């Protein structure tokens, strides 16, 4: 018997009520807005039985330039056993651009977090190898930030 998604949300509200700022629904999937300190306990809770969100589908970041909490981390989770999807969002300040790494919970978070670090400059505490994954050594700045200059080029070779 597959679990209903209302049960997951109810259990989360009971256990982490003070850490969840609000819940939302978009495109038929639930969104959980949480405080960043509660990320590890919440994903550990969801990873285990009976919810079993065993898949981390994606992990990314959004830059809301000009807002107080500028960056938003987005985690897409999927439960194969219960056929449930859940999105977790949390806001980060530009002055304190750090969040706990979830590589201890899902292994594939390793490269996804490196990508977010490469493109947005978010630092993941506890990541085993936080290094740029796409851009080369010596590349300055973070190209997917909204304030990265549109025409700024940093060639490795002198171009003609």
């Amino acid at each position, binding site marked *: 018997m597959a679990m209903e998604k209302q049960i997951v949300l109810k259990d989360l509200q009971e256990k982490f009520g003070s850490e969840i700022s609000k819940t939302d629904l978009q495109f038929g999937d639930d969104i959980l807005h949480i405080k960043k300190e509660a990320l590890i306990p919440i994903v550990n809770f969801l990873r285990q039985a009976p919810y079993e969100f065993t898949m981390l589908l994606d992990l990314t970041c959004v830059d809301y330039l000009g807002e107080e909490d500028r960056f938003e981390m987005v985690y897409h989770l999927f439960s194969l056993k219960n056929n449930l999807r859940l999105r977790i969002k949390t806001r980060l300040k530009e002055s304190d651009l750090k969040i706990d790494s979830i590589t201890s919970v899902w292994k594939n978070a390793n490269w996804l977090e490196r990508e977010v670090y490469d493109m947005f400059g978010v630092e993941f505490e506890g990541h085993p190898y936080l290094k740029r994954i*796409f*851009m*080369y050594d010596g590349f300055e700045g973070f*190209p997917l930030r909204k304030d*990265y200059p549109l025409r*700024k*080029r*940093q*060639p*490795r*070779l002198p*171009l*003609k």
Partner: protein
Amino acid sequence: MGKIIDDLPQWEPHTPIQGGFITTKFNELLGWARKFSLFHYPFVTACCGMEYMSAACAHFDIDRFGAGWTRFSPRQSDMLLVVGTVTQKMAPVLRTVYNQMTNPKWVVAFGACAVSGGIYDNYAVVQGIDRIIPVDVYIPGCPPRPETVLDALVKLQEKIQKHEQEWRWKSK
């Protein structure tokens, strides 16, 4: 039975060319030899590689132009096919591959991305490989049709034939 065979017209052996030699210029002979023995090195980085595969396989018979042999070592090849998007990160690799090729060597930019950067005008992509290495023939298209590739090959052959050829003991 023997009579019928005897009545058949006799097959005459081909008459040899008078004197047994032909005359040409060494420069043109070398150009003729070089244009029909283009070993190519595919520097495939993106989706144009699929179109390269169809162009290089039996269906379009690239071998009739003498360019059927793909070498996966730049040191053994004459023609560098740059197939696909070249990023800033990949640029030093392409330069190294070009430098590793021995003379004489030719470069073909295959597809819109290699020609001009294509649709990718951003922080990551080199806006045309001619900003890194010299290019002989440009093939437009996203991706180019195999016919376009063969046309470019013929154009490169014409260019090679017209070259002032270089050789090792040539007097400078």
